[in-house]
């Protein structure tokens, strides 16, 4: 895939700083809209960051090209993270996000194709993988070079449709499909393993015919490395089990079920932004830019 639209691959230091900035934007956006899925957004920011700033050959300029990579945001509730990254990549001015969730805004509380840069309407869990299989299959049929990437929640895996789609992905030998699972071990009610257990997840995916890799899904460097290796095996769909922390980046939001769709109070927002600011400054010192 040597499209000249492939995003200019950012350095690790830049990517890491972006993740911090994205987290700030997500929190401010949620506070402003007084709605959103805080925990799941923060959980997948690093994955979206690496995808859009390192992996995907997707840009506002090539978004209509048939050979662009496709990203389908199956865990649609984490829409604020997606909007943040798309705005940063120049798909629309970030000020437009001020209308998030407002009356008649195209920036609805789940991704829709009315927003430039969004590939597919999601929000009901357990749809993105089947659609991704379809897009990947078409790519094979037409001999196109694009890859299809999708992100699923771990709770989302309880929808049976994912397993139907997985069988198809393996059956069709879709090595142009890269599935990432945001394995933060939480869903709305609590721990996935207490609600409806998923483990042994890697074994399940392997048995369903994926080439499986596990990664720290909040470690930008590790993500870059793993995405660079995909597809992991010829003739097989790739699956990245991304071990993440729900609410990652803000100590008091991390790993708490009740932050699934909680909105920070004014004090909490200030504390969160302060914490992220400190992380950013520490990062700058490390990079020697401060």
């Amino acid at each position, binding site marked *: 895939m040597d499209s000249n639209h492939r995003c200019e691959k950012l350095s690790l230091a830049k990517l890491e700083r972006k993740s911090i900035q994205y987290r700030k934007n997500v929190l401010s956006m949620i506070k402003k809209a007084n*709605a959103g899925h805080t925990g799941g957004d923060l959980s997948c920011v690093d994955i979206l960051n690496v995808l859009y700033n390192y992996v995907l050959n997707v840009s506002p300029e090539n978004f209509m090209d048939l050979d662009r990579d496709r990203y389908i945001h199956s865990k649609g509730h984490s829409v604020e993270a997606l909007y943040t990254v798309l705005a940063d990549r120049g798909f629309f001015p970030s000020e437009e996000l001020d209308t998030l969730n407002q009356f008649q805004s195209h920036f*609805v*509380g789940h991704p*829709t194709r009315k927003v430039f840069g969004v590939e597919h309407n999601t929000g009901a869990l357990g749809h993105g993988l089947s659609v991704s299989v379809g897009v990947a299959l078409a790519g094979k049929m037409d001999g196109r070079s694009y890859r299809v990437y999708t992100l699923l929640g771990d709770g989302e895996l309880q*929808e049976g449709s994912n397993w139907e789609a997985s069988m198809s992905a393996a059956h069709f030998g879709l090595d142009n499909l890269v599935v990432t699972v945001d394995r933060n071990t939480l869903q709305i*009610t609590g721990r996935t393993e207490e609600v*409806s257990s998923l483990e042994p997840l890697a074994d399940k995916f392997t048995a369903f015919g994926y080439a499986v890799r596990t990664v720290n899904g909040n470690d930008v460097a590790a993500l870059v490395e793993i995405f660079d290796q995909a597809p992991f095996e010829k003739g097989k769909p790739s699956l990245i089990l991304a071990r993440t922390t729900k609410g990652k980046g803000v100590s008091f939001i991390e790993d708490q079920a009740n932050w699934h769709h909680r909105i920070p109070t004014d004090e909490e927002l200030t504390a969160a932004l302060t914490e992220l600011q400190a992380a950013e400054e520490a990062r700058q010192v490390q990079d020697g830019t401060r």
Partner: protein
Amino acid sequence: MELGRPNLEVFADTLLELGQQNKELLVVTSDSRGSGKLVSFGQKLPGQIVEVGIAEQNLVGISAGLASTGKIVFAVSPASFLTARALEQIKNDVAYSDIPVKVVGISAGVSYGALGSTHHSLHDFAALQAVNNIDIIAPADNFETREVIKAALTYPRPIYIRFGRKPMYHLHKRGTAFEIGKAIILKSGSDVTFIATGETVSRAVIACVLLEEQGISCGVVSMHTLKPLDEGIVLDAARGSRAIITVEEHSVHGGLGSLCASLLLQRGLCNPFKIIGIPDEYTVTGSQVEIFEYYGITPEGLAQTACQLLEEETFK
């Protein structure tokens, strides 16, 4: 009118009360106990709640299996996912197999207005209308909610109950009788009658006040049961008042309006008639109130529709 509580909360409290009295009562959830206000049920009656994970089809299938052994089963999940994704389970495992599961759709209609069409249930009446052997109820206020949940306990047939999450006005006088399949006349009038269901009923009641101020005689029926439809009340309304307006938080296709239109036309009653609901278009998003305003499901909007309808009739 006095503002009550969200029907959702009344549902949850009633279920807890009933569950404490009856150990055979089970609640089945799909990562939906928080949105169903059933956290307290789960804490107090942990042996009577079954969690199946984010899996609505599984939810309805498991509920049917549990209920087939004689358990009293309430399957609770957001109306949008429950009646779209698990429609085949509702059709085959509940309705067709005649297993009296109580299918409860929470946050119905445009309760999740800003979350987009994935989260709206504007299709549920239509979908279930066409499925044989499942009754459909949309309570309007706290009283109707409590009564329908109580009635559901011993109801012998499959039943679908849906409601929203915003506080509702109290609509009924003390001592009002409630029976599934029997609509409640809130007010009679000779110019126009609103036949409304669910969270729109209170809007019709206030519209009546506005219209009466203009000397227009108005009626309101709370049609909490869409199936089986209380045909007698619809026919009486059409005979007793010049115009009929139906109001629902649902697509204008396949819901209460379609049912009434079909009934009236087949009985030869051709009153001036209007169906108010969500038109067949890309639904706007926003809060429930904003969406209602946009589509004229407000007291003012409904009053205006009534005036127009009566005026058109006069000049016919």
